[in-house]
């Protein structure tokens, strides 16, 4: 009964989404206010039915209803309750349901928080989002319905959730990632609206910015959580593999980063308009491409739940439809939304343009590397497979990011329209000298070795940090005392600086952990020990420990620091009853400056095991930096100018019609 209710509400959500995608849009062109006004209630309707549907699937999981095929494949009576709930999005169908729920939630959020939006704009935006919901609801209902039943042969027991996914990381990683992915649909809907109306002014950019920031912040956290999960749950202490599934999440993030910066220019200066629109389309298209690549099983990965050509084909159709239709619209309408302001070669506009080019080029490089194996195979046949490894991606990505960081500080300290070179020199000469000098001296003094990549990375990170300090100093110089000065700066300014600081923290984290990690793969018998720095790891042996739905071999490793007892690490090797799958659970002592990591490999006879023991300095900073970035994005949203409900929202003059419509809708 409950699964049928879930299915039924899914169909209801689809029906309302169809209305949402047609009625308000038609209302715009027939100038029918009632039809436009229908957009808000329709959004609420879609959202409510999606929530009910999602709740029904969760109910089926919590009550072990194995007559639902999806539940039977992804759950088990022995599975702990909280994993039963998160198993809802542990497979293809359920994660798609979560995806659509997210679209509905963002749509609903737009309808709630856009009171200041003119009615015709709101109607268009919500209609475009309705179309996206329709596409994915159709896809779900026809190819991947999570409520499909196994009524005649109801299994007595479920197959169990993939052990890799029985973990805290899975509880939080997919929702955040999807919030980010799907969040770009808002920017996309605004971009399509801009193309339809031909109106792309400062007000438009101001409406779009908070939504883009929010999506970007969620995506940042989602990617960071995924990387963290790979670090401790895939068991081997790596945190980024340039795996296709990582790349497809990373590309929308990079383009989203470019979009955030380009939106700033569009809002403040009224230029880069069509470029901004193109980036918004690209960000969402790349999100869809990610969904397609991951879901179609084109690429081998833990995320490729189902290898089903039909699903792949339908997704590809949606993808081509979205990209094709929006680019067509773009080609027709982009000339209309042209910018007119002028700027010089050393203005902030140009530095942000450089930022955009670098980010887009990096994205293109990653896209090429990700798709290259597919292209190669398509051209040369199945027997000639290639894989593109980390050296390719590192060679492309790292130099581009180095240049990006150089311009980061220059861009944020420079001024709109025109910045003289002598001004930049005056502001940044000391910053440059200090960051290079300290960037070389600090590592040299601490480690007493010459390591050029470390010098470069530390200098770049300090270049950002000193640049931030210098900029704050300049901006607060004329404000009486320092506190008055700090208080006068806007939240969006702080948001930017926090996110930039996050970038510096990530650079340090990545570089220091890559160069100074000690990684030992050793065969150890009970009583054996190895030394890493001031730590001594003593292997005490392996014992058998029962778990709720698995048995574990638990290793015990006593760690001494400078000869004194310090802590005990207990990595496990679990074998799950239902599937017989074996899963390594690393044990990690997390610290702000270093992680101690131990994982059990495989037994090698006589009680001896292969152990992987890592000393990883500054690895925490990678995720900490990503959280700072997300925090910066959120801080910027809180800026009060996004909440001002002034009717003359548009500072740039061509706003006559917009202002009238605002009056109407108030």
């Amino acid at each position, binding site marked *: 009964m409950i699964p049928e209710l879930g299915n039924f509400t899914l169909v209801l959500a689809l029906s309302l989404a169809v209305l949402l995608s047609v009625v308000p849009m038609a209302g715009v062109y027939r100038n029918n206010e009632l039809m436009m006004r229908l957009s808000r209630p329709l959004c609420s309707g879609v959202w409510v039915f999606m929530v009910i549907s999602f709740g029904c699937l969760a109910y089926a999981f919590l009550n072990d209803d194995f007559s639902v095929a999806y539940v039977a494949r992804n759950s088990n009576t022995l599975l702990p309750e909280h994993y039963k709930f998160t198993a809802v999005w542990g497979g293809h169908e359920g994660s798609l349901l979560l995806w659509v729920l997210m679209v509905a939630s963002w749509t609903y959020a737009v309808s709630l928080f856009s009171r200041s939006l003119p009615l015709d704009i709101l109607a268009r935006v919500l209609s475009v989002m309705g179309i996206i919901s329709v596409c994915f609801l159709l896809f779900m209902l026809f190819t991947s319905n999570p409520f499909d039943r196994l009524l005649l042969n109801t299994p007595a027991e479920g197959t169990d959730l*993939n052990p890799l996914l029985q973990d805290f990381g899975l509880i939080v990683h997919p929702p955040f990632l999807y919030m980010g992915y799907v969040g770009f649909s808002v920017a996309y809907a605004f971009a399509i609206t801009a193309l339809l109306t031909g109106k792309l002014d400062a007000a438009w950019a101001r409406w779009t910015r908070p939504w883009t920031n929010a999506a970007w912040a969620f995506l940042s956290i989602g990617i960071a959580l995924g990387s963290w999960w790979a670090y401790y749950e895939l*068991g*081997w202490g790596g945190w980024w593999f340039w*795996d296709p599934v990582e790349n497809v999440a990373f590309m929308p993030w990079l383009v989203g980063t470019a979009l955030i910066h380009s939106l700033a220019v569009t809002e403040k200066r009224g230029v880069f308009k069509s470029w901004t629109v193109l980036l918004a389309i690209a960000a969402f298209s790349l999100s869809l491409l990610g969904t397609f690549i991951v879901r179609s099983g084109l690429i*081998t*990965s*833990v995320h*490729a739940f189902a*290898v089903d050509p039909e699903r792949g084909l339908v997704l590809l159709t949606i993808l081509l439809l979205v990209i094709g239709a929006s680019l067509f619209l773009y080609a027709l309408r982009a000339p209309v939304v042209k910018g007119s302001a*002028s*700027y*010089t*070669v050393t203005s902030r506009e*140009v530095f942000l*343009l*450089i930022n955009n*080019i*670098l980010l*887009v*080029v990096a994205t293109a*490089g990653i896209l*090429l*590397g990700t798709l*290259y194996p597919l292209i190669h195979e398509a051209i040369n046949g*199945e*027997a*000639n*497979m*290639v*894989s*593109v*490894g*980390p*050296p*390719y*991606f*590192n*060679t*492309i990505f790292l*130099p*581009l990011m180095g240049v990006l960081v150089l311009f980061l500080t220059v861009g944020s300290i420079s001024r709109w329209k*025109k910045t003289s070179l002598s001004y930049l020199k005056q502001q940044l000469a000391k910053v440059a000298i200090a960051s290079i000098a300290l960037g070389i001296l600090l590592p040299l003094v601490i480690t007493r070795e010459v390591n050029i990549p470390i010098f470069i990375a530390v200098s770049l990170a300090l270049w950002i940090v000193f640049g931030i300090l210098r900029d704050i100093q300049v901006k607060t110089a004329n404000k009486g005392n320092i506190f008055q000065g700090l208080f006068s700066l806007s939240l969006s300014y702080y948001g930017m600086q926090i996110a930039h600081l996050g970038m510096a923290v990530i650079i340090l984290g990545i570089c220091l952990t890559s160069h100074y990690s000690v990684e030992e*793969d*050793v*065969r150890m018998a009970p009583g054996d020990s190895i030394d890493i720095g001031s730590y001594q790891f003593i292997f005490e042996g392996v014992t058998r420990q029962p778990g709720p739905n698995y048995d574990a071999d638990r290793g015990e490793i006593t760690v001494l620091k400078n000869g004194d007892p310090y802590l005990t690490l207990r990595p496990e*090797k679990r074998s799950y009853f239902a*599937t*017989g*799958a*074996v*899963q*390594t659970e690393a044990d990690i002592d997390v610290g702000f400056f270093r992680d101690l990591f131990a994982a*059990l*490999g*495989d037994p*090698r*006879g006589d009680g001896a095991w*292969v*152990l*992987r023991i890592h000393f990883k300095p500054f690895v925490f900073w990678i995720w900490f930096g990503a959280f700072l970035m997300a925090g910066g994005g959120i801080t910027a949203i809180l800026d009060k100018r996004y909440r001002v409900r002034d009717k003359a929202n548009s500072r740039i003059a061509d706003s006559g019609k917009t202002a009238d419509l605002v009056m109407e809708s108030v």
Partner: protein
Amino acid sequence: MLAHRQQKLAIVLFIIFGSALAISLVLYALKEGINVFYTPTEISEGSVPDGQSFRIGGMVKMGSVIKQGLDGAEVNFLTTDFCNDVLVSFSGPLPDLFREGQGVVADGALDDQGVFQATQILAKHDENYMSAEVKASLDAAEGENVEVCHQ
């Protein structure tokens, strides 16, 4: 203030600069970062260039895994496409899904003795799912079975 045309010129120059940078980076990086995939049969036939790092895929031959009596964390096993075998040597913990009779993909290079020295063993696939590389390896071997293996 710059004229409109100069602005456009600046933008075009940036784009050219950016694409030139990107293309040269890509060409350079592709040379370094690509691992070509070979099957055990191709390796036995000597079609792999010397000293090049590449990727091998096949099944772990039943009864071929040797863990004891070797140095440290080393492990040896045969990878097979049921037509030819290649000896693989690896040092480190084996992935959870590594098992005799199951598919395996490894990155590495051949040494002087013709042993594949693996730097990484990949097993990012689950129980039911065979990686594309392993499948291709077996398919390729099957295609040649008639002529090569059962002559």
